[in-house]
């Protein structure tokens, strides 16, 4: 079984064409990155602001927890049958817009929770001291709270990235874009080796993304050097 899956993956012919592995992989990566960027642009400012004000967070965290309870599958079906439709969307493929919206909604809970918790858990003594030396609210946020909360915020982004990548496979259930198509195709043809191949690809992709995110996180953490000195 694994041998067949490996043969399937190593055969270059399976990678080319509009229904090849290559095209599906590109779609999945595009979907993941786009959904994550949109979710970060929408969710982070709100969560960071609420964290800075120390208010409304109960609501934000609870709303995003309820978001976790809404099945992506259901959202995807409703969007593609509803006003959004399942038309082709450029490089994102069939039902591209519905998939993107469903993935953005799915990415928001971990982003919002981590950003809010990260900011509120900055040591209040440090924030107090920053105010005491005359920093404005904005400076406190940009030079104290944000840098100190950065590791927690970035962890939220990393979790969202990996989850969105793995979840994007569900789009295949509405004949949408992405690597899930290899899995559903194998399932429909009772070709289990193709299902294995699809699963392996998605899992490997997730591990690679996770690895890249860990490296980026390390370089994006503004307190990296300070921490190294203190440890």
């Amino acid at each position, binding site marked *: 079984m694994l041998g067949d899956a490996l043969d399937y993956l190593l055969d270059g012919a399976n990678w080319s064409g509009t229904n090849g592995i290559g095209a599906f992989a590109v779609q999945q990566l595009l979907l993941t990155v786009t959904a994550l960027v949109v979710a970060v642009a929408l969710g982070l400012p709100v969560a960071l602001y609420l964290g800075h004000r120390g208010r409304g967070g109960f609501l934000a965290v609870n709303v995003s927890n309820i978001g976790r*309870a809404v099945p992506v599958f259901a959202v995807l079906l409703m969007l593609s049958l509803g006003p959004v439709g399942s038309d082709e969307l450029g490089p994102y493929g069939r039902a591209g817009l519905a998939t993107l919206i469903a993935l953005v909604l799915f990415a928001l809970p971990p982003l919002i929770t981590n950003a809010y918790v990260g900011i509120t858990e900055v040591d209040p003594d440090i924030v107090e001291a920053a105010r005491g030396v005359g920093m404005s609210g904005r400076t406190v946020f940009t030079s104290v709270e944000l840098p100190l909360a950065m590791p927690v915020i970035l962890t939220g982004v990393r979790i969202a990235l*990996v989850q969105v990548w793995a979840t994007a496979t569900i789009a295949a259930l509405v004949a949408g874009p992405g690597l899930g198509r290899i899995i559903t195709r194998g399932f429909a043809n009772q070709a289990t080796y193709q299902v294995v191949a699809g699963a392996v690809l998605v899992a490997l992709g997730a591990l690679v993304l996770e690895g890249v995110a860990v490296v980026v996180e390390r370089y994006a953490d503004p307190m990296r050097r300070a921490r190294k000195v203190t440890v």
Partner: protein
Amino acid sequence: MTAPQVARCYVDNDWLCGQYLSDYRPELTDATVQHLWITVVSVVAGLVVALPLALLARRNPRFESLVVGGTTIVYTIPSLALFSLLLPITGLSATTVIIGLALYSLTILVRNVLAGLRAVPADVVESARGVGYSETRLLTRVELPLALPVIMAGLRVATVSTVALVTVGSIVSYGGLGNLLLSGFNSNFKAQILTASVLCVLLAVAFDLVLVVLQRALTPWTRHAR
């Protein structure tokens, strides 16, 4: 002779359709019941496996990195693929869905059980040993109760995610309300899709509330803290 009256919302294929709720009550009940028991069995199975794994992992760092690494990889396998992969072994059965979902719950639960046990203050453990608690009694009377809030937090996340993920089980025809979602999609039946989706969310919220109440009942001492 008049033709039998068909509800307007069926004809228009509306998202909201009160008639659907009464006409399809048996289907809705069956799907909800299936959703409920698949969720419960999966999470309980995950917990039953997570506890011993966490207990072994906290004594053995090498085993810990193996467990944490292994469960991380499980979490990167999409549910769609996991169910399809189990299909040749367990067939078109609820077992396929339950094994998959138990594995996902396991990932969350092992971490929280470990974190909960680690957060038990060392001096409390020391005192319990000092007054002659055996290892078993220490675990059941001191460590697990004190770790309970963190374990319950993990249980809530695992349960809510499981309720949402059961729907994907519709690929092997055991997806609870997901079966209604998929058949509604295939026949373009909007009222069915919206109703099943709303029921899914309500089910998740209900589970979450039950767990919150359970936690409060199990940890009465945390209520007066702070």
